[in-house]
């Protein structure tokens, strides 16, 4: 007999017990997380700062004329102390530090985000494979991972940038690759726990393919720790980008990357300390904001972690 068109008068399931239907609240879990997050003051401050920085980064070109305000040389105005006209002062070529710091958010944010996406993309795929298929694949990936994580990130940056040239993209690539091991590790750990859940076996029994199971059922259930990790990685990527630029291996001059601004201001650190203080503060505030948000997300996603 066919299964079609068979209806069974099952006992009433619309009985009083059980929760009411919630058609509108679709992403319930997402809502809970956002609600938790909104109660965390630190995370909200972080989020606010990040939004401000991102807005400035996006509209930097509208606000300032790159050739005139950012890299244009005005010798007559060199090394001015902070004033109303130049809130952060000017550097040895007469460029306004305030404008350069604002414009520099562009490099930091884009390098941080793109490098993290590169690391996340590679790391999540490798981590998922290692966690889902134990055995040889796992061994190879994890050993490779151990080797990769033993290389200091600055060294990796120096190698890649000196081999391939000091461009912004190579900088992103170098930083992205150094963040791969952490994503591999964190993805593998959460895939391992999800993989042994009964619903994965149920999906196998229901004829769903391995690839589909990994992409649509295993990974979405591992997402929370990966998102937290990504937020925190953006912060370290920004520091790494500034460090490499400070060493002259990052975004090439005269672009106002915060690290290279620090490097330029170094020789005036006694006489015109504002050349180094303000780019340094910019790095500090941005990194702090991402770390605050990352910690807040972690607490919101896993309330058990909260003391």
């Amino acid at each position, binding site marked *: 007999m066919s299964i*079609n068109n068979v209806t069974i008068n099952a006992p009433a399931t619309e009985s009083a017990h059980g929760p009411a239907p919630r058609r509108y609240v*679709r992403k319930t*879990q997402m809502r809970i997380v956002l609600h938790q997050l909104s109660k965390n003051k630190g995370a909200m401050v972080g989020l606010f700062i990040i939004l401000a920085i991102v807005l400035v980064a996006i509209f930097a070109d509208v606000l300032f004329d790159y050739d005139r305000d950012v890299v244009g040389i005005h010798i007559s105005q060199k090394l001015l102390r902070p004033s109303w006209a130049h809130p952060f002062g000017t550097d040895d070529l007469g460029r306004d530090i305030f404008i350069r710091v604002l414009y520099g958010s562009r490099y930091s944010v884009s390098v941080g985000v793109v490098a993290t996406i590169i690391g996340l993309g590679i790391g999540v795929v490798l981590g998922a494979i290692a966690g889902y298929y134990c055995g040889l694949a796992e061994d190879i990936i994890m050993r490779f991972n151990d080797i990769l994580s033993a290389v200091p990130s600055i060294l990796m940056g120096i190698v890649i940038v000196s081999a391939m040239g000091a461009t912004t993209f190579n900088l992103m690539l170098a930083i992205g690759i150094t963040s791969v091991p952490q994503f591999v590790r964190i993805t593998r750990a959460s895939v391992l726990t999800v993989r042994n859940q009964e619903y994965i*076996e149920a999906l196998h029994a*229901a*004829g769903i393919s391995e690839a589909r199971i990994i992409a649509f059922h295993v990974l*979405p259930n591992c997402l929370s720790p990966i998102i937290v990790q990504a937020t925190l990685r953006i912060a370290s990527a920004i520091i790494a980008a500034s460090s490499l630029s400070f060493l002259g291996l990052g975004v090439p001059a005269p672009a106002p990357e915060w690290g290279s601004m620090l490097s330029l201001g170094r020789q005036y650190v006694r006489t015109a300390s504002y050349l180094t203080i303000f780019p340094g503060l910019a790095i500090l505030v941005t990194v702090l904001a991402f770390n605050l948000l990352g910690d807040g997300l972690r607490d919101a996603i896993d309330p058990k972690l909260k003391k």
Partner: protein
Amino acid sequence: MEKNVSNTILEVKDLKKHFKTSRGMLHAVDGVSFSIEYGKTLGIVGESGCGKTTLGRTILRLVEPTSGGIMLEGRDITKLNLRDMKKVRKDIQIIFQDPFSSLDPRNTISQALTEVVKVNKIRSGKQEIKDRVLQLMETVGLAERLINTYPHELDGGRRQRIGIARALAMEPKFIVCDEPVSALDVSIQAQILNLLQELQETLGLSYIFITHDLAVVNHFADVIAVMYLGQIVEKAPTEELFAHPLHPYTQALLSAIPIPEILVERPRILLRGEITSPINPKDECRFGNRCFHDCKECRGSNPVLREVSPDHFVACCKV
């Protein structure tokens, strides 16, 4: 044994599943044989850890058998490659023990059922798939308004109904029910059991019904097999088993069922002794340590299952 072979939907022959563990080979399923006819239910009863779930999963090849044969409608499915196995999976389905962990927490009822119908090409076309999902929900008694709810918003009974709907989505002939009610409270248990029974009648399904509670299969199973540490120790038609339990373990299980009459007093058989380890078991009766018979023969070799009266099989040297 003269049996009409064409009546048999599933025949399991000397099925074994051994797991490698740090302390040796764990004989989770160790030489199980039985057959099931179309439209009938085989109840498998045994205590926790005796290998019931492993048996059910091995039959679907969710875990690969160590040895033995699984004949579905005369075809040995242990020899099929993965692609052919996928087609066979449509005929055999499973309902899981724990309705709380057997559903993806991120999928609504609609998403879960749509995926199964779509991926297996049971229906095609958006509207047809949607109709099929609604029809499945109606079949298992889930109200249409619940279509966009997540598992965590539902009680155990409704979740188990989703599990049943998911199994039915493939239009199977045969379903392994792995303790489908043991995680539910008693009133819900009865609802789910009724549903399964009605589905069997209307759809002509065959079941393996796994449970640790003999009372549950009493009215449900046509034949009951009692499992102990990976082996079947007694198998008989349900009435026969309840009327004449022969194996000491079966007798102990039956004595534990409360009788709903006040004056009837049945002596409770209490089992003493340690459970034999399923890891590298010796060739002796696995129940020997806990048995109230004290015999020497079964210390030397593990008694084999033999027919003592028509269709009544038992593995005990005292019978």
